[in-house]
């Protein structure tokens, strides 16, 4: 008793301070190989993950364009965003200044011939025509400094993937929404910073002119993470409340006693409190999904006190009832704990969390039922006659033979369908683990396609011991990449070496620049007969000399530019080596691309299809989870054999439950929801509860009254699970809904099958 109270106090202290997480990448495995580590790094930190996609719609195009300009202006001024673009200008002022400063080391066109008299003569002719064009005076200063047009040439060489422009800003192809992108400075995994950024976008939009009629659509990983955190928090708390209220109503109806009803909640409340505290201690924080799962535990663990209270016959004390029920109850608790243990061993962090929560909550609930409840709860047997209507379904269970036949044919049907449509069983899309509603995911896909924004897709990964080697390898690969573009295998690519050329390439470009005297002579020769003012090209002579004898370009020189952001996304250190990513756009025929890439034999380079890679990762851990589940079931079998004193007995108890779980697993994909890891968790839960039913159905009752009480307790317990699972099935979060629906379908099946195969006809 004292131990219990002390434990509760300590848990309360820890649990109330627990940090709630909702970043779905937290559910990913903790141990990763190099490719997977890169994947997770991209999901958490990558530039695509930091991007907020913004759509403004619902007004006439002119007003939308105005709102887009106002919004872009406000966001550019904010410290939250490293880069904002609405299509007005492809490059910002900082980028232009950077390119102007470093043009002779950046431009791929820099070569000796370009600065010969002949090369300069052509440049002079172009310069004259540029001056002669409308508003040519605007170009005068850039012509004087950069007559060969290196800055413009370089900027034009950068990939220009962007949406259509209308009224000067980006628009969706249908012209209904103006589009913007904003990249946060903070990583996608920094949820508080992401939340601030999202709020800032909303505030800036509200303050922007013409926004009163238009509406704002936000999308992107950070936005989703923020929204799903709010969603899960709201879901987890409101669903727990709904589940709690539903179960409370049920118990009040059954017991007609506030004391007993309250006592029913005591074990599981203690269990969840201890469980949450343990998870927080072991993992540093608790995931919102684990917390939502706690709602369903409410349904299961009111079982234990219910078995105790409902088996309480007139004239018995709770202690004597417990003495009769405990051997069975003990097995019920221990088998469920084993189920939790098998999840705890998973290398999927999320599953391990759920396992620990399940295991500790159930164990504590069992112990509290055993040691605390008999001390504090009153013995108040319920009147069976009043609750007779609840047992109506047992008429059905009397046709054991028919039910068994039904169960086997259901199994056969499900297996047959599984063989016929093997592909539809599992869904390894990482996105399905992402707790965002489908509607928003579709909106995101649309916005992403309209913005032609980078998506996880095909990417070439270059690994090298150092930054320079990575850049050199990237440069060596570029001719081949241009070949891929020419052959239509890809639409384009982005490479870090285009933004930061390797030192070797920078030196080669520098060597192509003539000395001050030679350049002056060549320029004089080239200008002959053209009406340029003497001395006009002094800035050009000065800048070339500066580039020739000045420092090389370093990453620090990019500070404050949009290009820096791109560079950091494409080139970064990871686990002691440097990684250069080359995202490929428009890679539709991946097989052909892979074949061509294979033939290149590029050192340190690997072509990855990120989407398939994530799927493979999920599949691998799903395989592991299945193995662990099988192990867990085997352990349950062993425990049952020990507890019931025989393999046959154990098999008799376990079989109907496994049958119910298999049929449920087979049924779910038929209703259009292929199985994910979370369904597996829910099925494990169904097995846990189902075993309770099966154990009690196989227990020999003392007399007909106790038999009816057993039936009543199982019925009430099943109803309680249905209440809480029903609440979870209402969730807007796909993961919680999946768990709820699985339990909702599986638990009644487990009850029915347990009755059908039970030793004792009901």
């Amino acid at each position, binding site marked *: 008793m004292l131990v219990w109270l002390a434990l509760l106090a300590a848990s309360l202290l820890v649990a109330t301070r627990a940090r709630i997480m909702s970043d779905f990448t937290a559910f990913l495995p903790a141990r990763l190989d190099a490719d997977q580590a890169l994947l997770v790094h991209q999901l958490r930190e990558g530039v695509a993950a930091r991007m907020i996609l913004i759509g403004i719609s619902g007004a006439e195009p002119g007003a939308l364009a105005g709102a887009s300009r106002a919004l872009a202006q406000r966001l550019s001024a904010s410290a939250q965003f490293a880069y904002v673009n609405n299509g007005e200008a492809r490059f910002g002022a900082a980028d232009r200044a950077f390119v102007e400063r470093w043009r002779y080391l950046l431009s791929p066109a820099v070569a000796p011939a370009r600065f010969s008299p002949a090369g300069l003569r052509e440049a002079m002719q172009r310069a004259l025509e540029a001056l002669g064009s409308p508003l040519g005076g605007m170009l005068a200063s850039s012509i004087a400094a950069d007559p060969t047009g290196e800055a413009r040439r370089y900027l034009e060489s950068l990939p220009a993937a962007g949406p259509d422009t209308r009224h000067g800003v980006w628009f969706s192809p249908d012209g209904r929404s103006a589009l913007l992108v904003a990249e946060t400075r903070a990583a996608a995994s920094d949820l508080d910073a992401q939340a601030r950024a999202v709020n800032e976008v909303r505030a800036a939009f509200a303050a922007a002119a013409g926004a009163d009629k238009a509406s704002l659509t936000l999308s992107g990983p950070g936005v989703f993470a923020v929204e799903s955190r709010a969603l899960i928090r709201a879901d987890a708390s409101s669903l727990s409340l709904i589940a709690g209220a539903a179960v409370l109503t049920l118990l009040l109806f059954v017991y007609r006693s506030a004391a007993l009803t309250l006592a029913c909640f005591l074990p599981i409340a203690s269990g969840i409190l201890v469980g949450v505290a343990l998870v927080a201690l072991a993992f540093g924080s608790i995931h919102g999904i684990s917390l939502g799962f706690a709602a369903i535990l409410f349904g299961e663990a009111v079982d234990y006190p219910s078995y105790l209270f409902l088996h309480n016959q007139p004239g018995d004390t709770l202690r004597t009832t417990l003495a009769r029920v405990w051997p069975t109850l003990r097995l019920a608790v221990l088998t469920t704990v084993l189920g939790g243990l098998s999840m705890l061993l998973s290398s999927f962090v999320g599953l391990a969390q759920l396992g620990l929560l399940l295991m500790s909550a159930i164990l504590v609930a069992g112990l509290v039922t055993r040691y605390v409840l008999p001390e504090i709860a009153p013995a108040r047997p319920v009147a069976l006659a009043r609750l007779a209507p609840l047992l109506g379904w047992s008429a059905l269970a009397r046709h054991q033979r028919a039910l068994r036949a039904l169960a086997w044919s259901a199994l056969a049907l499900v297996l047959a369908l599984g063989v016929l449509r093997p592909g539809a069983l599992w869904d390894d899309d990482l996105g399905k683990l992402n707790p965002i509603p489908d509607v928003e995911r579709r909106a995101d896909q649309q916005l992403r396609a309209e913005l032609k924004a980078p998506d996880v897709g095909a990417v070439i990964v270059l690994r090298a011991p150092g930054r320079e080697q990575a850049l050199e390898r990237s440069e060596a690969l570029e001719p081949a990449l241009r070949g891929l573009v020419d052959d239509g295998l890809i639409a384009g690519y982005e490479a870090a070496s285009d933004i930061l050329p390797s030192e070797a390439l920078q030196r080669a470009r520098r060597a192509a620049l003539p000395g001050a005297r030679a350049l002056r002579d060549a320029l004089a020769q080239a200008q002959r007969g053209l009406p340029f*003012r003497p001395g006009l090209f002094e800035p050009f002579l000065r800048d070339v000399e500066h580039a020739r004898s000045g420092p090389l370009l370093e990453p620090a020189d990019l500070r404050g530019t949009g290009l820096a952001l791109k560079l950091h996304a494409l080139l970064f250190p990871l686990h002691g080596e440097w990684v250069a990513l080359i995202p490929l756009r428009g890679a539709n025929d991946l097989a052909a691309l892979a074949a061509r890439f294979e033939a290149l034999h590029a050192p340190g380079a690997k072509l990855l299809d990120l989407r398939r890679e994530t799927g493979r990762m999920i599949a691998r851990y799903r395989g592991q989870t299945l193995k662990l589940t099988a192990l867990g079931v085997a352990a349950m079998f062993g425990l049952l054999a020990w507890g019931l004193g025989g393999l046959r007995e154990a098999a008799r108890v376990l079989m109907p439950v496994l049958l119910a779980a298999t049929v449920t697993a087979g049924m779910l994909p038929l209703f259009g929801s292929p199985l994910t890891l979370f369904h597996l968790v829910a099925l494990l839960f169904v097995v846990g509860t189902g075993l309770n039913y099966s154990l009690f159905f196989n227990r020999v009752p003392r007399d007909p009254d106790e038999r009816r009480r057993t039936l009543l307790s199982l019925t009430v317990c099943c109803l309680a699970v249905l209440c809480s699972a029903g609440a979870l099935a209402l969730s807007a979060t796909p993961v919680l809904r999946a768990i709820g629906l699985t339990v909702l379908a599986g638990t009644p099946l487990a009850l029915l099958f347990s009755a059908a195969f039970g030793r004792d006809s009901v």
Partner: protein
Amino acid sequence: MRSLYRALAACLLALACGAAAAQQAELAQVMRLLSAVQASTVRFSETKRMAALSEPLVLSGRLSYQRGGRIEKDVETPYRERIVIDGDSMLVESPARGESHSYSLRASPAAWAFAQGLRATLSGDLATLERYYRTSFSGGEEDWTLELAPRDDEMARYVRSIEFRGRRADISQISVNEAGGNTTVMTIRPDGP
């Protein structure tokens, strides 16, 4: 005595207002004439005096306009170049080099305002014209001058004023005074041999 001055001042003010109103009416009339033009092709000779050049650059060629905002400038001497302004874009073609580039006019507020001013004048669209420029009109239908001063700061950094001269719906001269002392004077005469 004082009341006499006051009456005089009132008279002068009324006269000035009347004159302004009359000019406004003349401008509207010229705009009406211009708006009736469906298409036209003229020859031009353009003299650009620029700080970057030691002597003026003189271009000549053909200019054509189509109602709806399409303007084509074919430079024939001293080099060949074709510039087409249509909608949001400007196409620049160099036949000698076999190159052509398309630019978004919207990308530069100054270029956009310039193109809009040109188009609005040619099509007699006074409302658009006054959105981008302060206008001042002098002369009469038979010999008019329309001066445009950009309202947009970004454009004002590059262009001080644009001046059109004409007789009825025929524009005879377009002058552009750029910031920094660059001037462009384009004289226009009917297309012919």
